């Protein structure tokens, strides 16, 4: 995507800074605690200053001034409005519903009810939202809302708009789930509440289409069963009525669940494949790892090994596409719980091979060797850590 011009960037940056400034999480003042601890302590060499003690009059004047400061402090402390809280949530970015999915897989998914086109539309106050693509496979729920009737550059308000009072935000922006602007209910139960069963949730512009808003929720475990009524409620800035969609969802559960609990070790590093979930539209891999990532000879000096990443290959050698790859500007930690989604298999394979790899990262610039637009960098596969898992249907 094209970079936005600088003024927009500065406004966004200022909004982020303001958000940090206003996000104070301090609940009670620590002043009394600190003053108690200071209690008996003596400031070293205070005698130096003791000579010029201010007189009574001056002291009274100063107290008044200090009270005024406190008042200012309170006004400035601010709070994070729900609208603001919504802002950064568009950052967990996701790609398309069907990325890496073959036509056959989409067809299978549709046959099994995993992907449906509810073709519902709701209009309030001149703005129409259409619910078209919806995906649910027990592991994740995604849908797209197309917006009509308003001409705005994106479907969600930029940071700089969101902090304005509600009545000054342009009409027609879709509000996300964190601000309770989008609510998802399964059989009437709010599934976003408490984020109890949710691994990640993302809400924001859908990159492949103009005026399209996408929501995706990844669940920790399939708890919602195979048949339910999904309710999507969405609020739009400047519109009083809530846009509500009710969709019956019924899926044929063809999920293959593997619990290999298999471990591979090399030097200090070991990983355990806890779980693999295979559905026609998603592959999910759950791994726990421990220990320092092994380094290759070129990963020395300014170059370090990144955290361990895992590729998945089927018995035909087809590589699955990982949905999100987290890149970090820091040295890897020694313990990870990995829970990642990949593109689906073309068909359920007989065996699956996990190929761990690292990237070679320059620790000054945090750029990986071979990194380009569209490529994470040169993958350093670690043959000794490869693992092949049989699939029993």
């Amino acid at each position, binding site marked *: 995507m094209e970079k936005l011009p600088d003024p927009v960037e500065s406004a966004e940056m200022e909004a982020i800074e303001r958000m940090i400034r206003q996000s104070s999480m301090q609940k009670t003042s620590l002043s009394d605690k600190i003053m108690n601890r200071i209690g008996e302590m003596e400031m070293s060499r205070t005698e130096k200053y003791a000579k010029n003690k201010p007189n009574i009059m001056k002291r009274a004047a100063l107290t008044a001034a200090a009270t005024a400061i406190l008042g200012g402090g309170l006004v400035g402390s601010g709070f994070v409005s729900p609208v603001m809280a919504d802002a950064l949530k568009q950052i967990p970015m996701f790609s398309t519903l069907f990325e890496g999915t073959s036509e056959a897989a989409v067809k299978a998914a549709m046959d099994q009810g995993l992907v449906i086109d509810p073709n519902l539309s709701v209009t309030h106050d001149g703005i129409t939202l259409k619910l078209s693509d919806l995906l649910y496979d027990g592991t994740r729920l995604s849908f797209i809302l197309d917006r009509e009737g308003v001409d705005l550059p994106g479907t969600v308000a930029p940071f700089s708009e969101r902090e304005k009072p509600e009545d000054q935000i342009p009409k027609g922006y879709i509000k996300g789930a964190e601000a309770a602007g989008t609510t998802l209910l399964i059989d009437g139960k709010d599934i976003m509440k408490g984020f109890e069963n949710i691994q990640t949730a993302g809400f924001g*512009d859908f990159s492949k289409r103009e005026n399209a808003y996408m929501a995706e929720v990844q669940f920790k475990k399939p708890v919602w069963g195979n048949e339910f009524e999904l309710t999507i409620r969405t609020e739009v800035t400047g519109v009083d009525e809530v846009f509500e969609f009710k969709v019956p969802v019924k899926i044929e559960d063809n999920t293959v669940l593997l619990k290999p609990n298999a471990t591979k070790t090399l030097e200090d590093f070991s990983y355990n494949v806890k779980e693999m979930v295979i559905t026609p539209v998603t592959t999910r891999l759950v791994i726990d790892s421990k220990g320092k990532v092994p380094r290759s000879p070129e990963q020395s000096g300014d170059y370090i090994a990144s955290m361990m990443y895992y590729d998945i290959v089927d018995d035909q050698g087809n590589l699955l596409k990982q949905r999100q790859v987290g*890149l970090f500007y820091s040295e890897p930690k020694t313990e990870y719980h990995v829970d990642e989604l990949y593109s689906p298999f073309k068909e359920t394979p007989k065996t699956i091979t996990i190929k761990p790899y690292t990237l070679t990262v320059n620790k000054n610039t945090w750029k990986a060797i071979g990194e380009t637009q569209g490529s994470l960098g040169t993958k350093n596969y670690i043959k000794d850590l490869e693992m092949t898992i049989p699939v029993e249907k």
Partner: protein
Amino acid sequence: MQPIPGEAEEKKAQIEAVIERVQSGDKDAYGLIIRQFERQMYTYCYYILKNHAETEDAVQEIFIRAYLNLHKYSRQVSFSAWLYKVAYHHLINMKKKQGRWVQLVDKCMEEQPVQQITPHDTMIQELLTYLTAEERHILLLKSVEQYSFEEMGEVMGVKSATLRKKYERLRRKLMDRVLEKGEIAHGKIAGSSGVR
């Protein structure tokens, strides 16, 4: 809230006056200083330490340390910048000393039920993941106290021109994240409760 220049100067003068009182033995006046700065100090420490219990301790330690060293403070720099310098060094030392322990705390945090983390807190944390430790300090100092590069230079002991460059770089990084609209340009962000 951008302070009006005159107002900021006046506030500065008021704080300096309170400091003078403390320096000349009026211990109780220090409470005013704590209440004036603790909120933003808490935010600064929290985003570096990522843990409330540790942050509470750190904020207390910083104010106590500042109190004990108050005789060293003279008006050449603003009291605010001096206080944050104490904080900056305290946080850096903590990180060095307790690197291992901080990591453990980090892990516990991941295991806490997600609902304990407020959305904006999580989101800012997520953004900060993409910055180096030094960049985090720069962004937080600029955010919480709206410092100029000169003031931040005072706090961190780095030339303001260097800080300006570093700030540009971190801004670029964040904007690449924020403005990226889902295409794989540079990899993607991991889940809010997943790998960190």
